[in-house]
C-alpha cells in the first residue's frame, strides 16, 4: 500500500491522530497515553512558570519535544492580541512555527470568536507562523481562513470537552469539498467511533483530548482512538458503496433449489 501521510506545512506525519496534553491525572499518565495513541503531534498550552513551587514537574521532562512535535495553542485567549502575544512567546521557547490558534468568544460554550480568529490568522501568517486554526464548522469562514493563509482548518465537532461527537456532518463535508488544506476535527469528540466518522467524512485527522484523558481507562481509550482513526481513513480511502433504499441480496437467487 502506498504511504498515506498527514502533511502539515510540508511536514510529514504517519499518525493522523493529534492528542491534547491537558486534563490527565499526572504527567506520566499523559505521556503513556500519548505513546499508546501513536500520536506524533501533541497540543500544549503556554502558561506562567510557577515561581513559588519549583518542584512542580515540567511537561518537557515527560514528553520530549525532539521526539514528539509540540503544537502550542492559545487556549484561554479571548482576543487577537492575547493570542498573537501567546504564540510569539511559544515561538521564543524553542522556535515553534506550527501553532494552533484558538480564540474563544464565550466562557460557557467555548465557541471560537471567528472575527478575532480571522484577524489573528492573518497577523500570525504574515509573521511566518504556520497556523492551524480552531474554528466553527462554517464553510464560509473556513474559506476566509484559507484566503488569509491558514495552514490547516480545524472545525469543532461540538463544544470543547462536550463529548457530543460530530453535530454537523454536512458542513464538514462541504468544507472538505472546498479545500485542499489539511482538515482536522478539533474538539467535541466523545468516543472512538466519532473519530472514525470524522475520517470517513474525508477529514485528514482528528484532535482529541478530553475523550482520552477523562475516559475511565485512558490508555485503552488512547488505543481505541488510534485504531478508530486508522479504520476511518482506510474506509474513506476504500470508496464506500452507494446507499440504496431497498435490499440487495449478498447470495445470488440463481440456482436456488
Amino acid at each position: 500500500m502506498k504511504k498515506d501521510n498527514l502533511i502539515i506545512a510540508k511536514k510529514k506525519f504517519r499518525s493522523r491522530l493529534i492528542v491534547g496534553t491537558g486534563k490527565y491525572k499526572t504527567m506520566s499518565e499523559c505521556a503513556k497515553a500519548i505513546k499508546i495513541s501513536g500520536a506524533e503531534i501533541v497540543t500544549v498550552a503556554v502558561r506562567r512558570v510557577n515561581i513559588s513551587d519549583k518542584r512542580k514537574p515540567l511537561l518537557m521532562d515527560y514528553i520530549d519535544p525532539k521526539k514528539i512535535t509540540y503544537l502550542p495553542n492559545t487556549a484561554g485567549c479571548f482576543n487577537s492580541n492575547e493570542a498573537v502575544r501567546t504564540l510569539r512567546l511559544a515561538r521564543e521557547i524553542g522556535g515553534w512555527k506550527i501553532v494552533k490558534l484558538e480564540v474563544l468568544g464565550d466562557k460557557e460554550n467555548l465557541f471560537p470568536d471567528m472575527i478575532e480568529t480571522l484577524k489573528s490568522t492573518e497577523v500570525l501568517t504574515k509573521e511566518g507562523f504556520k497556523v492551524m486554526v480552531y474554528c466553527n464548522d462554517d464553510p464560509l469562514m473556513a474559506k476566509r481562513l484559507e484566503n488569509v493563509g491558514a495552514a490547516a482548518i480545524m472545525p469543532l465537532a461540538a463544544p470543547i470537552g462536550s463529548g457530543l461527537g460530530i453535530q454537523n456532518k454536512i458542513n464538514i463535508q462541504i468544507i472538505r469539498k472546498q479545500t485542499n488544506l489539511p482538515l482536522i476535527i478539533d474538539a467535541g469528540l466523545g468516543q472512538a467511533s466519532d473519530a472514525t466518522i470524522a475520517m470517513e467524512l474525508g477529514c485528514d485527522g482528528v484532535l482529541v483530548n478530553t475523550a482520552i484523558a477523562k475516559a475511565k481507562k485512558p490508555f485503552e481509550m488512547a488505543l481505541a482512538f488510534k485504531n478508530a482513526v486508522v479504520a476511518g481513513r482506510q474506509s474513506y480511502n476504500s470508496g464506500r458503496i452507494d446507499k440504496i433504499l431497498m435490499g440487495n441480496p449478498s447470495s445470488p437467487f440463481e440456482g436456488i433449489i
Partner: protein
Amino acid sequence: MNKIKIKVNGKIKLITNSYKLSDLLKNLKIPMKKVAIEVNEEIIDKKKINSIKLKKNDKIEIVHFIGGG
C-alpha cells in the same frame, strides 16, 4: 540598600537597584531552555539577559509549556 518593586508573573518582588534580568532568572532557578521571557510585554532575546537592568515597576513574565488541548 535601596530596594525597588517589580512584578514577576503577577507577584510583587523587591530587588536591589542594580539587579539584572539574568540575576533574577538565576535566583529563581529558571530552566532557560524551557521558557520564554517578557519584560513589559516585550519578548526578550535570551542571549541578552545579562545586559538588561531591571527598573522600578517592570513587569516580567516567564512562561513555559504545560498540558493543554
